[in-house]
C-alpha cells in the first residue's frame, strides 16, 4: 500500500484507536488528552509502529486544531467577563504567574536551555488546564461552591495572559530581536484592547455578521473567519492561535453558544490530531531519562498551584476546606501546556529533551490533577469541625 490509500488506512487506524482510548478515558471520568498523547508516542518516531504517511496532513490538521481550541476558548468567555475578571482578580493572576511560571523557567535555566527554553517551560508549568478543571468541577458537583468562582477567575486570567504570552513566545521562537519582540507584544496588546472594546461596544453587531440560521452556512463562515484572522495574525507574527482566541471573544451571546455547538465536533477531531502529532514528534525512548525530573517538577508545581488557589480563596473569605479544594483543583495542566510545547517543538528552537519533559509533565498532571481534586475532599474533612485560628492557614 502506498500513497493515498496508505494515508487513509493510517488516519483511519489513528482515529479509531483514539476513539477507543477516549471511551476508556470517559469510563474513568478522565480527560482524553493524556491518552491521545500516549497514542501519539506509541505510533511516532521510535515508537511501536511508525506512521510516516500522515505527517503532512497531521501538520496542517494540528495547526487547525490549535486554532479551533483557542477559538472555542474565546467563545466561552464574554468580553465583559474578561474585563470584570481582570479588574477584580488581577492580583491573584500576578501571584499565580509568579508562583507557577518561575519553577519551569528556573529548571530550564538550570538545564542550560537558555532564555527560549525558560520562556517555554515557564509557560508549560504556568497554565492550568481550564478544560480539564471545568469538567472536574462540574463532575464533582462543585459549581455551586463558593470557592469555584475564585478558581474560574484564575483560569480566566491565565487564558487572557496567553493572549500576550503566545505572541511573545512566537516572536522569541522566530528569533526576532528584542525590539522586534517588543513590537509583536505591543501589536498583540493593542489588538486585545481593541477587540475587548469592540466586543463590549459592538458585540451584537459582530455576532450578527457571523450568525446564520443555516448550520452549513454558519459553519463555513465561522471556520473561514477563524482561519482568515489566524492567518493574518500569524503574518503579523502575533501567533495564529491568539487571532482565533480574540475572534472568539468578539463573538458573543447566543451566537457564541450556537457557534460552540457547531464547532465542538470539529474541534474534538482536529485537537485530537494536534495531541497525536505532538506525541508522534516526541521520541518515547527519551521519556524515561527525564521522568525523575518531570516527577519533581510536577510535585513542586502542584504545591505552588495549591498555594496560589488557597491564597486567592482565603482572600475571598473562604474557609480552610474550601481553600484546599480551590488550590488542588488548579493542579491539572493539559492542552495549553502542550500547545506551548508544540509551538516550541515546531519551530525547532528547543531540544528534544524539553519536549520529552513537557510530555511527561503534562501526562502526570493531566491524570493526577483530577484525581487529587477528587481526594482532597475526604482529606479536608478534619478541618471542618474546628474552623478556628488553631488550624494553619496554609495547606
Amino acid at each position, binding site marked *: 500500500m502506498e500513497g493515498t490509500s496508505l494515508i487513509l488506512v493510517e488516519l483511519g487506524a489513528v482515529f479509531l484507536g483514539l476513539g477507543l482510548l477516549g471511551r476508556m478515558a470517559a469510563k474513568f471520568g478522565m480527560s482524553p488528552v493524556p491518552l491521545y498523547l500516549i497514542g501519539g508516542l506509541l505510533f511516532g518516531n521510535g515508537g511501536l509502529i511508525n506512521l510516516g504517511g500522515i505527517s503532512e496532513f497531521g501538520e496542517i490538521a494540528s495547526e487547525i486544531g490549535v486554532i479551533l481550541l483557542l477559538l472555542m476558548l474565546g467563545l466561552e468567555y464574554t468580553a465583559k467577563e474578561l474585563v470584570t475578571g481582570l479588574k477584580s482578580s488581577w492580583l491573584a493572576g500576578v501571584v499565580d504567574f509568579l508562583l507557577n511560571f518561575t519553577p519551569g523557567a528556573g529548571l530550564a535555566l538550570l538545564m542550560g536551555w537558555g532564555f527560549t527554553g525558560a520562556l517555554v517551560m515557564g509557560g508549560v508549568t504556568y497554565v492550568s488546564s481550564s478544560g480539564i478543571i471545568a469538567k472536574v468541577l462540574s463532575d464533582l458537583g462543585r*459549581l455551586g461552591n463558593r470557592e469555584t468562582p475564585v478558581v474560574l477567575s484564575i483560569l480566566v486570567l491565565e487564558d487572557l495572559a496567553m493572549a500576550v504570552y503566545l505572541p511573545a513566545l512566537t516572536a522569541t521562537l522566530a528569533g526576532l530581536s528584542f525590539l522586534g519582540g517588543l513590537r509583536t507584544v505591543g501589536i498583540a496588546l493593542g489588538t486585545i484592547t481593541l477587540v475587548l472594546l469592540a466586543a463590549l461596544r459592538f458585540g451584537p453587531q459582530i455576532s450578527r455578521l457571523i450568525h446564520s440560521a443555516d448550520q452549513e452556512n454558519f459553519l463555513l463562515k465561522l471556520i473561514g473567519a477563524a482561519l482568515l484572522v489566524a492567518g493574518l495574525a500569524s503574518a503579523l507574527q502575533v501567533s495564529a492561535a491568539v487571532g482565533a482566541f480574540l475572534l472568539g471573544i468578539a463573538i458573543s451571546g447566543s451566537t457564541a453558544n450556537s457557534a460552540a455547538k457547531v464547532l465542538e465536533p470539529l474541534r474534538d477531531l482536529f485537537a485530537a490530531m494536534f495531541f497525536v502529532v505532538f506525541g508522534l514528534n516526541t521520541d518515547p525512548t527519551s521519556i524515561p531519562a527525564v521522568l525523575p525530573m518531570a516527577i519533581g517538577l510536577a510535585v513542586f508545581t502542584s504545591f505552588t498551584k495549591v498555594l496560589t488557589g488557597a491564597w486567592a480563596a482565603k482572600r475571598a473569605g473562604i474557609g480552610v*476546606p474550601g481553600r484546599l479544594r480551590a488550590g488542588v483543583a488548579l493542579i491539572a495542566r493539559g492542552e495549553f501546556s502542550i500547545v506551548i510545547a508544540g509551538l516550541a517543538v515546531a519551530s525547532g528552537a528547543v531540544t528534544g529533551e524539553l519536549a520529552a519533559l513537557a510530555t511527561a509533565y503534562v501526562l502526570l498532571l493531566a491524570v493526577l490533577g483530577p484525581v487529587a481534586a477528587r481526594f482532597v475532599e475526604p482529606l479536608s474533612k478534619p478541618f471542618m469541625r474546628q474552623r478556628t485560628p488553631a488550624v494553619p492557614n496554609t495547606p
Partner: protein
Amino acid sequence: MNFEDTSLPGLGVRREITLASGRRVGVVILRDGTMQLIISQREDPDACAASIPLSIDEAGAIGAMLGAPQLVTQLTDQHRDLPGVNTQQFVLSHESPYVNQTLGDTHLRTRTGASVVAISRSGRVFPSPVPGFELNAGDVLVIVGTSAGLDHAARLINDG
C-alpha cells in the same frame, strides 16, 4: 428577598438566596440553559451538600410547588370574611384524564360549584384562566369553593 448573582466565567451564573438558617439555596444556570439546584452544606458553608441537575420541566414543577402555597395563603386571606369558602391547590397528575384538554372540558364549576381562580405552571401564575386554557400535567390548579365542592373537585380532577 434578594437573589445574589455570582458570575461563573465560561460556565454560567450562580443565583442563590441565604436562608434565615444561614444555608445557601439556589441554582446554577449554565450557558446551555440547563440548571442545577444547589443547597449548601451545614458543616462547610462554602461547599454544596447537593447539586442536582434539573430539566426545564422539572425546574418549573419545583417552582410551581414552592410558589402555589403562597398564592393559596393570599387568596385565603382575601376571603377570610366569607365563612365556608376555602381555597385549595391540586396538582394535575400525569394520570389525570384532563391532561392536554382545556379547562372548559372539565365542566368543574357546573359539576362541583367550585371554580379555578389561578393556574401555576413552571413558576408562572396564570390568574383567572379562561375555559379555553389547555391543561398540562404538573399544573397546579388553585380552586375556591366549599369543603364539599373542593372534595368533589379533587376526585373529578384525578378520575374524571
